């Protein structure tokens, strides 16, 4: 991100030196002002949703959803130890519900559990990474909130398009993951590549892939 930011600043200011240097600093201040305006809007949204999500958490509803996810987690990750399995369930549930700040700690713990202190990435770790980078959120609450603040006629009409796009990116991510995994394992079997992914539990994992 550092590189991206620096190049935006250097190239942007660089061009303005020749084009419109008199408004260069005021442009920077405009950016900062806009950030404050957006922060206030976001604050209103976060306060409401974090309040609601806390009710979800305190009623134990998220754990119920987590239990429903067990078959899916088993299918995607194969055999994992109970603690890691639990952390994955918490991570996916909080992703689905949009509990941003609950995702990260559980995600890091799950990643640690999957890695078992090794320095090579496993297929399960990539799956967790893909699930987290392709959004899983069911209700795009922040975006809806921003639309309300911007005076949209129907702020909710993006729920379905967002769900559709989320589904496409997540589903294609999972499929591509499984495909790459298969391809790597095949290469490993043929002995052409030594860099193939190590399997944490070879028998169970293989059974799970070729099922």
């Amino acid at each position, binding site marked *: 991100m550092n590189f991206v930011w620096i190049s935006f600043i250097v190239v942007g200011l660089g061009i303005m030196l020749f084009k419109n240097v008199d408004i260069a600093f005021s442009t920077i201040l405009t950016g900062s002002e806009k*950030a404050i305006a957006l922060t206030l809007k976001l604050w209103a949204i976060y306060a409401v949703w974090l309040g609601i999500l*806390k009710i979800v958490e305190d*009623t134990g509803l998220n754990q119920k959803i987590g239990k429903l996810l067990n078959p899916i987690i088993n299918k995607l990750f194969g055999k994992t130890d109970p603690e890691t399995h639990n952390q994955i369930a918490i991570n996916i549930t909080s992703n689905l519900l949009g509990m*941003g700040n609950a995702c990260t700690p559980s995600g890091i713990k799950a990643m640690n559990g999957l*890695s078992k202190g090794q320095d090579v990435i496993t297929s399960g770790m990539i799956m967790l990474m893909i699930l987290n*980078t392709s959004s899983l959120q069911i209700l*795009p609450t922040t975006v809806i909130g921003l639309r309300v603040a911007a005076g949209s006629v129907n702020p909710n009409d993006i729920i379905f398009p967002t769900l559709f796009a989320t589904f496409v990116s997540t589903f294609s991510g999972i499929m591509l993951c499984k495909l790459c995994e298969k391809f790597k394992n095949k290469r490993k079997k043929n002995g052409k590549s030594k860099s193939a992914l190590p399997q944490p539990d070879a028998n169970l994992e293989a059974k799970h892939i070729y099922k």
Partner: protein
Amino acid sequence: MQFSSYLIPILIILLVVYSIFKKNNAYNSFVYGAKTSFDLVLTSFPYLVAIFIAVELFSVSGLSKILGMALSPLFKVLGIPIELSELILLKPFTGCGSLAVLENIFATYGVDSYIARAGCAIAGSSEAIFYITAVYFSQTKVKKFSYGIPVALISNLLGVVAACLICKII
């Protein structure tokens, strides 16, 4: 009013009623949860300032136009409007950044325009790939991500194409 307008109010009613059955104090939970928004806002604010300044310089200097022109052939093939190029390029790096760009899109094209709606679907359906990868692997010894990053980028791009397509239809 569409069906989707009922969704959030109904969910909230169900949740609060459920909390009565669970004998949970919903009011206390809500207040406690709302309090944590302080921390979230404080952490995201500095990022928003940094991103907004960069984005502002980017568009005022005319760079975004140049970039849009450079990308237009590729985007045309995929059915993505050029106006969304900034959003799509920044999104893998920063979640705050995509919200910042989205605000600019609302102001420029109108919140109910096709561009803004497609932008919403994109921002709501993706995450900051590089940021999340860095954080999640931060406590492991893993340095190489194998096919992880390419798969994440490709599936995100497919999500973008899907978002632009579906917003055109409905």
